[in-house]
């Protein structure tokens, strides 16, 4: 297993292994996980989404469990860019691996405002553009539901930073390949998907929704089959690398996403269940690759065999 090469390239960003953490599931800086494992074993840490100005986030309840899944309506709670630079950024250098900043805005201009500030930040290796959060806009709308808006936002970010750019897509669209191609055309180094699926939960006795916003985002093992399918479709549709996200609990799930064409993956909700889920996946991955005779992650990516 020592011979298994785990390194992958996401455009201009090189990861020592394909396991990243998903934004919003790894605390604010990742320091929340430092008591449980050495973050440097990860391919990359993706931080919680930053917006230009502070956001209180949504009123509780913010999470609700469903069968093998978790609905959330956090609402991009964050201290805003300025305070984030003072409070969170200094902690990130302790990660000892690639750090991916994740940004969002309520308008295109807010995305661009943040993008223009990225090159001055020390210790940041790439930017993931969250154009797909369902919990901030009316009815769960976001740029990733429209190819033109996707292209405008991603192009605007690419033009304003030297960092590698990852576009994080929403699954809540009719044809995700259209959006993926728009992100690729705009110059994205890589595409990550899926963000959460829109969902809701209700209390029938009270005739009330669980969440104040009614709508929330579903994550966890419940969405894995849908995420695998969308990752496969996008991997077939674009030539930039794809980062698979959606219900990954362990290294076997990582293998499944690699098989359908993801070059890297992000572990999300599993972090809540088991603080070492991402590290465990890194530990177990070489053995699984060796089991199928793959000498490297790259050899195995997209190697799904389909009988004609």
């Amino acid at each position: 297993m020592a011979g298994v090469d785990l390194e992958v390239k996401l455009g201009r960003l090189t990861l020592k292994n394909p396991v990243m953490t998903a934004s919003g599931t790894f605390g604010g800086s990742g320091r929340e996980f430092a008591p449980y494992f050495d973050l440097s074993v990860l391919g990359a840490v993706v931080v919680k989404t930053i917006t230009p100005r502070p956001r209180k986030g949504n009123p509780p309840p913010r999470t609700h469990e469903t069968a093998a899944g978790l609905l959330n309506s956090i609402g991009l709670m964050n201290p805003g860019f300025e305070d984030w630079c003072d409070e969170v950024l200094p902690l990130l250098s302790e990660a000892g691996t690639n750090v991916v900043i994740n940004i969002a805005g309520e308008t295109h201009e807010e995305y661009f405002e943040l993008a223009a500030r990225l090159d001055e930040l020390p210790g940041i290796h790439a930017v993931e553009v969250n154009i797909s959060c369902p919990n901030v806009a009316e009815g769960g709308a976001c740029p990733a539901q429209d190819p033109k808006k996707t292209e405008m936002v991603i192009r605007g970010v690419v033009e304003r930073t030297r960092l590698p750019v990852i576009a994080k897509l929403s699954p809540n669209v009719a044809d995700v390949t259209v959006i993926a191609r728009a992100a690729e055309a705009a110059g994205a180094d890589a595409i990550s998907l899926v963000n959460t699926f829109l969902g809701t939960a209700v209390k029938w006795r009270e005739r009330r929704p669980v969440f104040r916003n009614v709508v929330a985002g579903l994550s966890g093992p419940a969405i894995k089959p849908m995420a695998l399918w969308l990752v496969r479709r996008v991997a077939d549709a674009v030539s930039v690398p794809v980062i698979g996200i959606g219900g990954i609990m362990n290294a076997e799930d990582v293998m499944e996403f690699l098989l359908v064409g993801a070059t890297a993956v992000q572990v999300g909700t599993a972090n809540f269940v088991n603080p070492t889920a991402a590290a465990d996946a890194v530990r177990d991955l070489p053995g699984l690759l060796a089991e199928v005779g793959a000498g490297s992650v790259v050899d195995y990516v997209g190697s799904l065999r389909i009988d004609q």
Partner: protein
Amino acid sequence: MLRNMGIVVVNRPIGPDAFWMDVEVPDMSAVALPGQFAMVKCSDGLDPLTSRPLSIADAVDGMVSFAYAVVGKGTGLLAEMQPGDRVPILGPLGRPFDYKHAAKRHVMIAGGIGSAPFPFLARALRDEAPGTETVMLYGGRTRDYLFALELFEELATKVETATDDGSHGHHGLVTDLLMPYLGDAANRLYACGPTPMFKSIDEKLEGHDNPCEISVEPIMACGFGACYGCVVPKRDGDDYQFVKSCEQGPTFEIRDLRVDLMGSH
């Protein structure tokens, strides 16, 4: 913060849909403090997916104890566990009660299963501040909902009860019993129970200086700061900010929170 595989030693009913569980988990038992909590995984499978946050009801002799109400699928599975079963536990987590202060009286106020953190606190006060009066004000729907009442009668120097139906103690709310203890600012208060109880305490404290820590019990997905789900509104001048109760709490000085904005799930 430790991840441990605990072994269930005792899991017995203490009232309607409520249980007391002793888990053998020595590393955690040795370091846990009154007011802290643990995340308890109720199933090996994916449903329920996340762990359940439970107040640590006691920690002694290698055991960690929980007093919990069955409110859903997770706690339902927990109630079915048998002695010898293994249960993954993460903890101890959160900020303990700030009880190591000289006080004339320590007054604990509990509503129903909100009494869960108080055996640990009452025992710590008895052992660490001998001679200090510890009062338990305990409210429940009926006598049956005054869980582990005998334990509190043993640990506290005085127990006063209130029930909705008058079946034990005062016929009314537990907060009706509070006023006599607010006159003397040297009395320290600790409360855990439903949000309306916190709101009542918050109102009664107006004009009084008694320190009062409450232990909040929001829905939590992770318990260690990762998910940002378990927030409560913390006072910030005239404004408020949501803060993670798993990290800054679950115990808070009641005046630091905007109790008036807290929901009542």
